[in-house]
């Protein structure tokens, strides 16, 4: 308990120091454009949060991120399972995956900007950037499956359904979670990057860019804080869901035990 308090104190202290350094820097520079002070940024944040389109800006960015997240997770899991099961398919899509992993985000965004209306660009770009990450994870999961356990299942007469439920799915889950977590944090950044470049009517990234162009640095910082918060909340929600799923599984496992010991 005491160690924990000490840890928190250090973390708190250094956070405070960061803010103090910012404030001192701002006072020395004395330029609203270069580095606004803490107060004005706070005010700008409050002004943002209480402005009516704030919910729209944040909502649309969040919905773009979540939409691409789910599209990626579902499609990459499906295709990853195919690739894991079929070495031919895996080899076949390899060049595409390699290229996708090497393409700079910006190329994709610039091209997508030519191809689609600006609202679609973040979705499309996030898909192209996130898909290979998730796909490779699921494919890896198959490579890492324990063949010894599979032999065990076969020798001990597991039915196909038992095998899938108790051997295949549990083997995939850790890779699925890692992939989904990486995808989620990637998706935020790509969606915001695409918004910055395409400036859709609503969206955090577009507002950030407009603020920068208008030299409203305090709003750039405020929107940045909003973006950091969104990322952090996303991670928290994800970890929360994973923990919940873990608990649920334990509950189910308990249920399968003979009587309530």
């Amino acid at each position: 308990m005491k160690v924990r308090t000490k840890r928190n104190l250090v973390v708190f202290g250094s956070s405070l120091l960061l803010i103090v350094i910012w404030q001192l820097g701002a006072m020395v520079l004395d330029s609203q454009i270069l580095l606004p002070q803490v107060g004005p940024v706070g005010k700008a944040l409050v002004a943002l949060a209480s402005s009516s389109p704030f919910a729209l800006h944040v909502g649309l960015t969040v919905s773009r991120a979540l939409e691409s997240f789910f599209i990626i997770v579902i499609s990459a899991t499906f295709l990853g399972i195919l690739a894991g099961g079929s070495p031919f398919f895996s080899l076949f899509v390899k060049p595409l995956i390699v290229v996708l992993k090497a393409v700079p985000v910006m190329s994709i965004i610039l091209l997508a900007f030519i191809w689609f209306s600006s609202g679609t660009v973040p979705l499309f770009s996030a898909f192209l950037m996130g898909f290979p990450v998730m796909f490779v994870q699921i494919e890896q999961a198959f490579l890492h499956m324990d063949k010894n356990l599979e032999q065990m299942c076969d020798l001990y007469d597991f039915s196909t359904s038992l095998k899938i439920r108790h051997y295949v799915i549990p083997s995939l889950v850790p890779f699925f979670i890692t992939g989904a977590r990486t995808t989620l944090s990637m998706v935020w950044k790509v969606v915001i990057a695409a918004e910055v470049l395409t400036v859709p009517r609503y969206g955090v990234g577009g507002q950030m860019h407009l603020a920068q162009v208008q030299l409203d640095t305090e709003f750039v910082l405020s929107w940045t804080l909003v973006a950091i918060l969104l990322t952090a909340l996303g991670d928290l929600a994800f970890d929360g869901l994973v923990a919940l799923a873990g608990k649920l599984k334990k509950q189910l496992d308990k249920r399968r035990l003979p009587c309530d010991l």
Partner: protein
Amino acid sequence: QPMYEERLSNEPVKANIAVMAGPTGFSSVALSFNDGKINDSVVAEISVYPSPNEVIARLANGELDFACLPTNVAANMYNKGVKVKIAAVVGNGMLSVICSDGSVTDYTGLLGKTINVPDVGSTPDQLSKLLLMKAGLENGKDLVLDYSVASPAQISQMLIAGKISLAVMPQPFVSMVLAKNPKAKIVADIQDLYAQVSGMENYPMSVFVVTDKFAQNHPVATQSVLEAYKASVAWVNANPAEAGQAIEKIGIMKAALAAPAIPYCNLVYVPAKEAKAQVQAFFASLYAFSPASIGGSIPSDALYL
């Protein structure tokens, strides 16, 4: 003391000039001749940028000395404390509403329609909103401004292909669309509409700005650059074909696209002193519907060189 510095050095002064990959770039091309050498003491270095966005930050951090900018951007920068002065108006309005399929014939027919506008916050957007306000119309109700395609070049392609019907467009894209799609017609001239509501003859669409620092440190060089710019505007207007070649050469736009449009681009050179009234009136109009578009307030005379 600045004068003293200038005389001491034998090196010619380098003037970093920014133009955008659009009409504001056209009128500056003659500055690039002779490797930018304007006279023995001044050399111009022209850089082309995709949009004002890249220019604003550079003016703020001191990498640029001169720039062609949309007029409202100059006011915005001034109000945010970036020390720049308007030296001249170099482009008057040249926006039109184009209809690609004959479904509308004049501006009264626009009611209830959807009109594509490139890029939120751009001059076409501001003027469209300004006119809507003056006419007592509401975006989204009486007609819809659609920003989903941000690049004017891309809107042009779609107008030519007939994929969209109506758009507010600047030159040289207007000329291009009219040339390539025989069914396309101009259904409203934004300049006329602006004249009707403001009483001014036209509006200043782009200005040539200089940083305070450069103007103070190198007054002679500043003067040389402005004169050279003035001469360049005259030359471009007089020799559209040759100008087209030069425009392509420094990477602003393809000659085939630029040259035919030059006569319609309203390229002018009006020194700040003469243009001040017109510019201030334009700011007043913008201020009335969106103070934020010019940075919150109408600039004082200190904005003009």
